[in-house]
Structures are given as C-alpha cells and as structure tokens.
C-alpha cells in the first residue's frame, strides 16, 4: 500500500487536476441556471456546418475519383479469379486441401481442425456463400499485408514519420467503417471492391504495428553485423532485419487475417456479392435468430481455422511427413472423381437447418415464458441504473419510478453529503480520492448527458494532465472542442453515457469472470470458447436475442455492447493474474500468505498494468460496437452515422465518425497514460 500514500505537504499533479475540475464543476452548477449556453452548445456557435463540409468533400472525392476507379478496375481482376477459384473447386477437394495444409503446419490436430471446420460449413448449407466470403478475404488480406508492410517499413526507415504513422494507424482503427462507406462507394464504385478496401483499411494497422515493433526489436549486434559485411540498406533490410523480425511479423499477419475476416460483413451492407454477410443481413432482417446464428458461425468456423493455422505458422516450423498430405489430397481427388455424379450440390446440405430453427423456436418460447421477469429486469435496470446515469438523479427520480419526487432540497442534502465525505477523505490524507468522490457524486446528480461542456473539457484536460502531462492535456481538450464546434456535442455525450454504462458493467462482470478463470482452470475451459465466439461472430447476430428480451432502447443497446466489449476485460484480467512471476509467488508463499492475500497483495498489483490494457481494449471495443448498437435504435453518434449512410450524406457521416473516433482516441490515450504510470511505479 505504498502507492496510495501521497505526500501530504505538497499536492501531487493529480490532486491539482482533480481540484481544478471540481472547481469548474461547482462554477458551472452555480451559473447554469442563468447561463443556458453552459449546458447546451448554442446552434449559432456551430462553426463547421456538415452540409458545407459535405460539398467540399464531395468535390475533392470527385477529383480523385478517376484514380480510385482505376484501382477498383485493377482489383476486380484478382477478385474475379479468386471467386472463380474458390467457388469452382469441388467441395471434397477443397476440404482435402485445407486438411492437408493443416497437416503440414500442425500435424494431426490441425488437420482435424481444418476438416471439422469445413465440414461444419458444408453441413450448414452456406458453402457457396462461404466460398465467396473466403474469396473476398483472399484478396483483401494480401492488400492489407502489403500496405501494412509498406507503412511499417516507411516508419522504420524514416523515424521522423513515426508519430504521424501512429496517428494514422489510430485513425484507421477507430473511425467506424460505416462512417466512410458512402465516400468509398462514390470513389470506388459499387460492388465487393468497396468491402474489400474497407476491410483492408481496418486490417492493415495490426500488420503495420507488428512490423514496426519487430524491426525495432532486432538486436543491434545483428544490424551492425549486416552493416559491417558491406550490405546495402535494402540488403540489410530484406536479408537480415526482416528475417530476424519474422516471428513478430507473423503475429501481425495473424491479427491482420482475423481483422479482415471480422470486417467481411461490411461488404454485404453495400452488396454486389452473394456472400455470408448478405445471408446474415437477410436473416437478421427477418428476426430469425437461429438462422443468423448459423450463418454467423460459418464465419466463426473460418476464423478459428485460419487463426489456429496461421498461429501455428508463427511458431517454430515443425516438419510433418509430406506423404500424408499428398495422401489426403489424393483421397479428396478420388472422392471428387468418384462422386462426380453422386456428390450433391453443396447448397443441398442443410442438415443443420432444423437445429437452427430449433434454436429460433427456443428463443421464442423463452421470451414467451419469461416475459414478465425480463420486463422487470429491464425496468429496474432503467429506473435505478441507466436513467440516473443519463439524466441524473434530479430528473430520473419521479413518483412513478422511485416512488417519490426529487426536490432541490434533496439536491442540497446530496451535495452536502458529497462535500462532507470528500472533506473527511481529504482530512485523512487522500485529497485526490476525496475530490474524485465529490466529482463522481456530482456527475450522478446531474447526469452524463446533461454535463456542462466546460466541465467535460476541463475534466478531460485535467485527466490528461495527470495521465501524461501538458501535451496529452492539450490534445484531449483540442480534440473534444472539435466535436463541440461541429455541433455534435449532445450526441457525443449520449455516446459517452452508453459507453460509460457498458464499460462499468464490463469491468465488474469481466473482472469477476477473469478472476474466476484465473483461480479455476475449469471455469476458463468454459469461458474461453465463448470469448472466441463473441469476438469473431458478426456483431449483428447479438442484436436479435437482446431485442427479443428487452425491446428497442438503451438497455438493449448497453447489453449488446457488453456482450462484445466484455471479452478483452476477461482475457486480460485472467492473463495478468496468472502471469505473476513464479519467484514472487514463491516468496509470498514462503512468507505464509493465504490464497486470498496472495491474490490481493501480490498478484493484483502485478496484474494492474495488464488489466488497465484490458480496460483500454474494452473501451475501444465498446466504441466500435456503439455503431452496430444504433441498429437497435439508439440516438447517439451511431445513429448519425447510419442516418448519413442512408442519406448518402458524406459530411455528416465523416464528422460523426470522426467524433466517435475522437472519443475513443482520447479515452485510449488517457488509459494508456495511466497504465504507463503504473508500470513505472512497478519498476517495469
């Protein structure tokens, strides 16, 4: 408990930051009744009109359009070839090829995985659509890999560009894809090429980041040896440094594949291609949960096969008998030839369809059976959790929700209590904690969606200052101010509220599950495959059961976001707790620590930076799911993005997307700043 012991005489920067925020909040609260512009940004102050922005952007896009069209014409060729190749290959042969590759990279286990995965795809009845999807991935991954490699090498060769490249990668990963689909259609024309480019944009950053990391970590001696042997820069790079960094680059390749696969559904929103994403969209439109789950699981099957096989490639290569692979291929060929007439059309395999229909019926029956309970859960969560968080206790407490009316007098008592508790904490030496408590209680009273903007700006600035100094502080304030002048502030606050609620739930639930998984391997065995599935299945699929149970509204949106964003929290919490160095554990055991003491005093502090990284990922995941949750009917930035997509309003789409990215970016940098501080405190 050394960390919590702040010096009492001179105040730490964090304490100053908290005090300034508190002061701003108090001022805003006092002045808000007489100065309405403190809570609502006046429409006249909106400097950047999205309509005008649209016109400018459109002119620019038209200007570069011919070049983009050329790219899409060029890409259409490999796209056509890949599609012809994948759809024309007879299914027995295709299964044999994948099984043989599995054998070569990872022996019997991988071969079995490949065989079972593809057999599942065949039995689902979505073979043809699945092959179209694979064709799309087969073209978009090389595009992403090559561009990721180029970006990474560029940053490596010209160190001055590193900062700019990092920012570019952040933008590529945080701006929601839906926000730039309209401009992409305008630029590249209609069809699968747009989906291909969208997924390449999303998949390139992990590749680039790993290339940069890998090249950075090549040992100096290795580099110097290459220089001394008189190699040119290109020779050094391609014959020494890249091979030395190969393992890290392969990790990037694996991440790149997974990211590309998770984005294929985007291609379906535009259309032009009969792929698995289109099936998911069609079944989702009819609210058929079982069927859309089945279609989604096809993507999961591909993802698991590709992930494990490319993961095995990144490990040390093992040699497996090639004759076995040839044997498998020959068997596949034999089946193809023998059953040429007998082999049914792959679309005729619909063995799993009754199962999907059963799942769908089960969902209906469950909703019918537990309707009242589900409504009660939702109402309680809304009345006592979400509504107060959004509009504050002062507006959420009404006779028909809590049974009484909140009055100004109660507000006074509330604040008096907050200040007393805060002062008590401050008197015991924890000034920062006391101030933070007053701020938190103040936010609960006001509600996130009704926070005055100066308070949010100052608060973000103060957090930035505490987490990473003046530069981070200025960055956070500057970026948030940009949302303000775009006139998207109220929607951004709603997004912030939805994210806060979801992240809070994820921290509690994910933390608990991570802890349980760390303590008991049995729990982990159950939790892990669920995590895998939640991460790769198209996010749309979650929306149906959530809507069936809880209808359109914020509660459903929060649950859908949680289903996706909870995964990193679980994974990182478990990883951090399990990963404690054995010598620390031994020392603690020798000192006679109980299991609980070990967890609290040894493992938890050690795991803190990792868990903070998990929190960071959870926040980013929550923001990316926010856009999908708009399909449920939220009224935040996500809705603006869909509105823009529907109306082909480029300006609104890009600015709402940028606002969303700014929120995610600021949150990311703040958490990273704190994680960095924590690591330094631990001496890492």
């Amino acid at each position, binding site marked *: 408990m050394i960390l919590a012991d702040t010096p009492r005489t001179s105040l730490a920067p964090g304490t100053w930051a908290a005090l300034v925020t508190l002061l701003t909040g108090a001022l805003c609260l006092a002045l808000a009744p007489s100065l309405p512009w403190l809570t609502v940004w006046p429409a006249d102050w909106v400097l950047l009109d999205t309509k005008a922005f649209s016109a400018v952007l459109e002119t620019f896009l038209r200007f570069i359009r011919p070049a983009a069209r050329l790219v899409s014409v060029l890409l259409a060729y490999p796209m056509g070839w890949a599609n012809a190749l994948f759809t024309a290959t007879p299914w027995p042969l295709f299964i044999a090829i994948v099984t043989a590759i599995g054998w070569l990279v990872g022996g019997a286990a991988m071969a079995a995985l490949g065989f079972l995965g593809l057999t599942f795809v065949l039995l689902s009845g979505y073979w043809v659509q699945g092959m179209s999807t694979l064709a799309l991935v087969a073209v978009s991954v090389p595009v992403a890999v090559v561009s990721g490699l180029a970006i990474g090498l560029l940053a490596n060769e010209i160190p001055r560009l590193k900062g700019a490249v990092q920012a570019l990668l952040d933008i590529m990963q945080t701006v929601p894809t839906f926000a730039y*689909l*309209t401009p992409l*259609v*305008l630029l590249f*024309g*209609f*069809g699968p090429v747009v989906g291909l480019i969208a997924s390449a944009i999303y998949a390139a950053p992990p590749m680039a980041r790993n290339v940069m990391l890998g090249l950075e970590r090549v040992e100096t001696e290795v580099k110097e040896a290459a220089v001394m042997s008189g190699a040119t820069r290109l020779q050094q790079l391609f014959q020494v440094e890249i091979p030395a960094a190969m393992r890290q680059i392969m990790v990037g390749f694996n991440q790149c594949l997974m990211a590309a696969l998770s984005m294929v559904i985007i291609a*379906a*929103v*535009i*259309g*032009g*291609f*009969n792929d698995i994403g*289109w099936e998911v*969209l*069609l079944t*989702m*439109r*009819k*609210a058929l949960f079982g069927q859309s789950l089945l279609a989604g699981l096809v993507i999961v099957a591909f993802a698991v096969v590709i992930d494990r096989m490319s993961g095995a490639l990144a490990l040390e290569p093992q040699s497996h008998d090639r004759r076995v692979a040839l044997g498998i291929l020959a068997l596949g060929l034999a089946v193809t030839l023998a059953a040429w007439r007998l082999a049914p059309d792959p679309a005729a395999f619909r063995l799993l369809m009754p199962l999907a229909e059963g799942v769908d019926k089960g969902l*209906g*029956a469950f*909703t*019918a059976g537990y*309707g009242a309970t589900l409504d009660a859960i*939702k*109402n309680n969560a*809304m*009345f006592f959790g979400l*509504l107060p968080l959004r509009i504050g206790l002062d507006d959420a407490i*009404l006779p*028909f*929700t809590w049974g009484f009316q909140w009055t100004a007098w109660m507000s006074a008592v509330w604040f008096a209590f907050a200040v007393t508790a805060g002062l008590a904490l401050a008197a015991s030496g924890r000034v920062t904690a006391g101030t933070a408590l007053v701020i938190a209680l103040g936010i609960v009273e006001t509600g996130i969606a009704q926070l005055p903007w100066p308070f949010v700006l100052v608060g973000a600035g103060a957090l930035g200052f505490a987490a990473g100094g003046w530069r981070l502080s200025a960055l956070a304030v500057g970026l948030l101010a940009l949302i303000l002048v775009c006139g998207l502030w109220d929607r951004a606050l709603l997004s912030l509220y939805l994210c806060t609620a979801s992240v809070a739930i994820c921290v509690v639930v994910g933390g608990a599950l991570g802890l349980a998984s760390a303590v008991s391997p049995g729990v982990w065995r159950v939790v892990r495959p669920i995590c895998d599935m939640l991460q790769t299945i198209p996010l*749309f699929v979650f*929306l*149906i059961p959530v*809507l*069936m*149970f809880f*209808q*359109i*509204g*914020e*509660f459903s949106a929060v649950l859908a976001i949680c289903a996706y964003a909870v995964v990193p929290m679980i994974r990182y919490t478990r990883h951090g707790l399990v990963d404690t160095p054995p010598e620390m554990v031994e020392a603690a055991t020798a000192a006679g620590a109980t299991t609980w003491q070990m967890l609290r005093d040894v493992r938890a502090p050690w795991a803190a930076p990792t868990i903070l990284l998990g929190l960071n990922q959870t926040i980013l995941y929550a923001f990316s799911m926010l856009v999908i*949750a*708009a*399909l*449920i*009917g*939220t*009224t935040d930035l996500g*809705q603006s993005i*869909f*509105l823009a*997509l*529907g*109306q*082909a*309003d480029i300006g609104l789409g890009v600015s709402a997307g940028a606002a969303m990215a700014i929120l995610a970016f600021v949150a990311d940098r703040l958490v990273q700043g704190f994680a960095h501080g924590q690591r330094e405190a631990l001496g890492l």
Partner: protein
Amino acid sequence: MKHLTLGLALAALATASHAAEMGAVDEPIKLAINEWTGQHVTTHVAGEMLKAAGYKVEYVTAGMMNQFQALADGDLSATLEIWSSNVSDQYAKKIGEGTVVELGDLGLDAKEGIAYPAHVADLCPGLPAWEALKACAGTFATAETLPMGRLVDYPADWGTPGADRMTGLALPFKAVPAGSEGALITELRAATEKKSPLLITFWQPHWAMAAYDVKFVDLPEGNEACFNDPAWGPNPNAVNDCDFAPSRIFKAAWSGFEQKWPAAYEILSKYELSVEDQQPMMGAIDVDGGKVEEVVAKWMTDNEGKWRPVVEAATK
C-alpha cells in the same frame, strides 16, 4: 387538366407500342436485389420477362440505401421496387443530375399506418378506432417513455411518420425510432410471443402482416388538406392529424438504359405487379421456405397471360 394530360400520355404510349430495337443483347442487364423478399419477387419476375424477351440478366445484391450511386454509374442497370416512404435524398439528387431515370409506378398498392398485433385489441378495448389510444396510453408505457405510451417508429433514416401522427393527433405517445427493419420485426415477434402491448409504425405488403396478424389503427383519411392546413381534421391546431400520405412504389433505371437496351426499357417501364400476385409468392418463400427462383418460375407458367403481352408488345 390533370386527367387530360394523363389521357394524352396514355394515347401516346398506345401509339408508341410498336416493337423497339433489342439493343445490346450480349451484355447482361444488372438488376438490383435489395434486402426484402417482396423486392426479390418483383425483381425476379421482371428478370424472367427480360430473359423471355432474349436478354441476359444478372441479379446483383445491393443495399437499398446505397444503390443509387451504383445506378448513376451504370454499375446497376435498374432497381424495381423503390418505396417513396423511405427513399434516400440521394435518389432525388441523382434524378436531378439526370444520371438516374424513373420508370413509372410498379402498381403495387402499398399502405402504411400505425399498427398493432391482433392480441393488443384485448389490452386496449376500442381499437382499431384511433380515439381508443388516448385512454390506453398507460398500457403502452415502458421505462423509457413513462408516463407516455411507446410507439415504435421507423428507423431514423426513413423519416418519422409515426411521430408526426402522434403530434398531429395529440396522442400521449412518445415515438422511439427502431434502428433497422430487423428491430421492427423483432418487436412484433416479441410482443406476439409475450402477448404484450405494442404500437408500431408498419406497412403492407409485408410478410409479417400475416405472420404476426398485424392490424392497422383506423385514422382519419389522409389528404393534402390535412398535411398542409392545421384547421382540417380532429385536431384544429396541427397538421398530420390523419392517415399517412399514400406511398408510391416505383421503378428506376440508369440513364443509359434506354439507349443500350430499348426493348428492355419498354418492358420494364410497362411492368406492373399487384399485391394479390406478390403477397402469395412472398408467403411461399418466407413462410413455406420455397426458393425465389422456383416460386417465381411457377408463377410465370401459371400466369403467362399477365406478363407475356408486355414482352410481346415490346419485341414483336
């Protein structure tokens, strides 16, 4: 005057019904397949007609909202079921540019309205009369809308016709936008399973109308006077205190279509499909699990009299 011009136009059409040039028969005509079954039926019937005339046809999946850029670029040749109620601004823009041309009405008689699954009539006695909703608002209330009732409206990008009706008729309902058609259907399904109250903005023809036994609320007749003059209708202070504006369903094509495939242009312009024809085909697909191609092929053989003359007028 309006009737006279219409008559003239019809006469002009009648005299112009000599056979048109076939045009580029070797290049496929690309028809847009949007996200709903009715549109699949409409498009496949049209496609089969074009094939019967001797054209090559390609069906291309396309998002309803984003297809107009593709249509303007000629990447799609035609799209055959556009609903005036939820067509994007981009369509008007492309029509203005002259890169997309309209091909006339599909002849599908659509209706939009405030609707409810049949069991809700027991929960709110007096339905389908709209006045009944005044007293029942509390029944429809949920955590988000208390004390007002909840109306599930169209997704925000389709406009807010349901909310406009509630304001117009001064009904104590708050409109909650659904985020997608899937969300609307899920609401209907959940309400039917749970036997819970639901008021929703919906339309027909739609397969869910039959599947969930959906009924429309009777609203005062919708007309121009109601949409523009507050004094008209039950609420003297507001417009929109009446039924929805009648929605049109129409067809559109790429501007180069007529020149490239003149006869096909004529076929698609004259092509019409009624609700009575479309609805059973939708049922055969969505409820009985049939394939679009097979269901449409069966209809084509059974109803040759309905489409063959249009093809022959254009080609012979």
